C-alpha cells in the first residue's frame, strides 16, 4: 500500500512538473510583448511622420530610350481593373522612344488588416511604413508586373505606333 502511495506521489510530482513546464512554456509570448514595446518606437514615428512623396525616382534620371520606335507624344492607356481598384498608365514618347511611364490611377484603398498581431512574431523586428525621401538608383516593387498594368501599357503603346 505504502509503495502505491509512493508511486502515486512520484507520478503526481512528475505531473505537476509537466504542468509547471507547460505553464512556463505558455509564458513565452511575453518575449513578444517586450518586442512589441520596442516596435512602439516605430509607431511613434508614424504619428510624427510627414509623408514626403518621393516621386518616381526612376523618372528623374535622364530620358530613357527604348528599343522600338514610336510617335512622339503623351499616350494615355485604358483603365484596367486590378481587383483592388483601377490601374491606368500614361506613356510619354519623345524622340521616338519611351521616355516615361506614369501611373494615372492605382488602387490606394486602406484595407483593414486581418494580419496577426505582433505577438505572433516575437523573433523578428517590425517597423511602421515610412516614406523615404532619399534619391535612389532603382526601385523594386511588384506593381509594374500586374496584368492590369500590362493591359493599360499595351493600349497606350498601340496608340503610339507608327
Amino acid at each position, binding site marked *: 500500500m505504502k509503495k502505491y502511495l509512493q508511486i502515486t506521489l512520484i507520478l503526481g510530482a512528475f505531473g505537476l512538473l509537466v504542468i509547471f513546464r507547460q505553464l512556463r512554456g505558455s509564458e513565452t509570448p511575453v518575449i513578444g510583448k517586450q518586442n512589441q514595446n520596442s516596435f512602439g518606437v516605430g509607431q511613434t514615428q508614424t504619428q510624427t511622420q510627414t509623408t514626403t512623396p518621393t516621386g518616381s525616382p526612376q523618372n528623374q534620371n535622364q530620358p530613357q530610350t527604348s528599343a522600338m520606335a514610336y510617335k512622339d507624344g503623351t499616350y494615355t492607356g485604358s483603365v484596367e481593373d486590378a481587383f483592388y481598384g483601377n490601374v491606368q498608365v500614361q506613356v510619354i514618347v519623345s524622340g521616338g522612344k519611351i521616355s516615361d511611364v506614369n501611373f494615372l490611377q492605382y488602387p490606394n484603398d486602406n484595407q483593414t488588416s486581418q494580419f496577426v498581431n505582433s505577438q505572433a*512574431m516575437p523573433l523578428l523586428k517590425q517597423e511602421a511604413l515610412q516614406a523615404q525621401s532619399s534619391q535612389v538608383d532603382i526601385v523594386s*516593387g511588384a506593381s509594374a508586373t500586374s496584368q492590369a498594368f500590362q493591359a493599360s501599357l499595351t493600349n497606350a503603346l498601340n496608340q503610339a505606333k507608327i
Partner: protein
Amino acid sequence: MKKTAVIMGMPVIIEILDKNAKESDIDEVFSYFVSIDEKFSPYKNDSEVSKINRKEIDERNYSKEMKYILKEAARTKKETNGYFEINLNGKFDPSGIVKGYAIFEGARKLKAKGFKNYYVEIAGDIQVSGTNKEDKSWKVGIRNPFNQEEIVKVVNISDNGIATSGNYIRGKHIFNPVSNKEADEIASISVIAKNVYDADRYATAAFAMGEKGIYFLDKLKGVEGYMITKDKKAVYTKNFEKFVIN
C-alpha cells in the same frame, strides 16, 4: 548607357556605367529577353510553353532550357515545402521562375563582356553589379505597395539580386499551391539574395506562404527579406539591416 524597353509586356531597364558600353551591348540582352519570351510565354500561341500545354511536344523533346527550368522549378518546390508550383489548375506556367532566370542570365551576359558596374531590371526585379555613379553601392528603393509614388525603404546592394512579390495591384496573381487559394495575407515581400534568380523564386514562394513567409526567408542562408503587411507594417529578417544605411 541606359535603355528602357517593353518586353514580355513589362518595362525592362538596363544601365551599364562602364565607359566602353555600347548601345548594342544592351540590345543584345534585350534580344535575349525577346527569345525567352517567345519560348516561355503562356500567352504566345507558338511558345514552347503553349505547345506543352496543348500536349504537342513529348517530354523527351523539350528544349534544353525548358528541361533546365523544369528541374529548377522542382528543386524550388522541394526547398519551399510545396509553396512554389508551376502547374496550377492543370495549366503549366513557369513564369514564376523564368523572369528571375532571364534577368540573371542577362546580367551574366554583361559580366561575360567584362562589364563591372551595371544593373538589369525587369518590372521591379533587379540584378546589380558593382557600384553606382557615385562609386557607392546601388541604392534600391522598395516601393510602397499602397502608394506607387512612394518608397518605404532604401537598401544598398552591390553584387546582389532583389525581387519583390506582391498581389496588391497585380490582382489574383500568386496562388498558394498548398491551400489552392489566392495568396492574399500580405501586401508585398522583397527578397535580397546573391542573385536575382534566387531572390525571385524565394520571393514568389514566401509570398504564397503569407505571414509565415518571412520566417522561411529568415532560415535561408544568404537571403534576407522585408515583408509589408496589409496593416502597413514591415517585418524583416534578422540580418536585413546590414543592407540599410541611414
